[in-house]
């Protein structure tokens, strides 16, 4: 065992998993059996159709139901009741401290879905400006025609934030990626918050646009908004040779490098908070070659500031040798240009390279 290991274990000896486990409830996914089934089932369905719409009906819907027999009848009942019965926002044994409300900020690109919730401290609770809120939660995305997929998109986490007068409402963002089916505009989906009784719920504020299930979960219904078409970009170097091409969607960027220098170029899911305006794309180069991003102006002269509304940020520890560039490419203009200048201070010769990238950006208007 290394000296570092001994010292750190000694320093962090109070952090133990057993203590954490005792303090927090760990919810084990109960979809293991479903997962096993789903792989074969997805292959079966994928063989028949390339894209499965969640609103599939008729033969396909029946096929999916046969493959995924409904497991949670209470949940199905709740879904079926949703439109015909008044929403029940009363739950027993709740803390009655917080409202959970789904916002209209729903972003979807077909394969990734981002939804936002507002968690609001209600006025009836004792309020202390020094209070901290720390909530754990888990959520599921539910496809009504594929009921047994109720755990697809399962995600969990917690957040903590100091409550102050101007921050009574916390924004909770959930991103469901790698969806097994392609979502299209107008699809009606559900999101279930498990153990909602422990998290929320103020029944009187009117903020809860949900239905409480028998197991205490909160069920939200929503419609998928319009999905913008993706943007395709092709980046070229100064010689006009393609360096990489990229596909931008409202929530992701997928790039393929033509040059080995970018062989670690990652696909990236863009958190909605980072989306400044329509299709401002966040390109995380995530390369281990420390670079200093520069931009070209309209006349292809180097500039420290981005051209035409683009911007960039650099995570730095204050030493230019340790820069980790994150470059933003704006699609508001007709063209974005980025130049990467590797840090000449590095002793490793292979890092001292220059590369220019120019992309033609389609007119978004």
């Amino acid at each position, binding site marked *: 065992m290394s000296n570092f290991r001994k010292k*750190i274990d000694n320093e962090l000896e109070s952090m133990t998993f057993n203590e954490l486990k005792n303090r927090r409830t760990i919810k084990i996914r109960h979809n293991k059996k479903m997962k096993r089934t789903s792989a074969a089932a997805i292959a079966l369905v994928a063989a028949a159709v390339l894209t499965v719409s969640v609103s599939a009906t008729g033969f396909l819907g029946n096929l999916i139901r046969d493959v995924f027999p409904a497991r949670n009848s209470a949940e199905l009942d709740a879904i079926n009741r949703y439109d015909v019965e008044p929403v029940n926002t009363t739950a027993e044994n709740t803390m009655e401290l917080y409202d959970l409300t789904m916002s209209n900020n729903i972003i979807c690109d077909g394969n990734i879905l981002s939804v936002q919730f507002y968690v609001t401290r209600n006025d009836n609770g004792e309020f202390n400006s020094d209070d901290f809120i720390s909530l754990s939660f888990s959520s599921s995305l539910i496809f009504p025609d594929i009921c047994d997929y109720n755990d697809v998109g399962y995600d969990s986490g917690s957040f903590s934030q100091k409550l102050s007068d101007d921050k009574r409402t916390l924004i909770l963002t959930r991103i469901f990626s790698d969806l097994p089916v392609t979502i299209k505009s107008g699809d009606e989906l559900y999101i279930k918050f498990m153990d909602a009784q422990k998290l929320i719920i103020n029944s009187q504020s009117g903020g809860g646009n949900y239905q409480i299930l028998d197991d205490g979960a909160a069920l939200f219904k929503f419609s998928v908004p319009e999905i913008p078409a993706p943007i395709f970009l092709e980046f070229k170097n100064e010689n006009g040779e393609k360096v990489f091409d990229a596909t931008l969607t409202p929530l992701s960027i997928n790039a393929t490098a033509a040059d080995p220098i970018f062989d670690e170029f990652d696909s990236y899911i863009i958190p909605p908070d980072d989306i400044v305006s329509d299709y401002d794309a966040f390109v995380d180069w995530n390369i281990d070659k420390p670079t200093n991003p520069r931009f070209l102006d309209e006349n292809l002269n180097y500039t420290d500031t981005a051209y035409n509304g683009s911007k960039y940020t650099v995570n730095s520890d204050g030493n230019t040798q*340790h820069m980790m560039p994150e470059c933003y490419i704006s699609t508001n203009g007709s063209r974005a240009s980025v130049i990467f200048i590797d840090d000449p201070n590095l002793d490793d010769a292979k890092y001292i390279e220059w590369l220019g990238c120019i992309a033609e950006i389609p007119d978004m208007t």
Partner: protein
Amino acid sequence: MKKDAEKIELLFNKYGDEILRTCMLILHNRAMAEDAAMTVYENAFAALHHFRGDSKERTWLIKIAVNVCRSILKSSAYKTSMSGEIPEFAADKDDFSALENKTAVSDAFMSLPEVYREAAVLCLYNGFTVKEASQITGKSQSTMTFRVRKAKELLREALKECYYE
């Protein structure tokens, strides 16, 4: 199912502390490190039947932890919390103030730039070889070698008053 649960319990009894502390060193945020460790537990349980034994169980779990931490590092919530817009979770401050001057090494690790921190944690804390760390992170061995070397330089600088002089 029950057998899997027992298996996961055994694994986390053995490696749980290391996973939690690895997450802490990478994320530098106790609340998020705890979330990450819980997510590793859940993900490991869900993926247990996919584990083919190509790697050691410990390596597999640490790889899950690294991936979970990477997701958190990329999240806007993490960036916001680390930028100071949202105050650190109270317990963190209390804990760290209590441990003040007793956490020099872990503080030094957590202060490393993200790009070097992961490599440092894997090689210098977890004790993986460069080759193993390379397999876990998906980075080339030369990349890992470079990052560990830079991390050591930075750690030496940060800890020189404590241990190197």
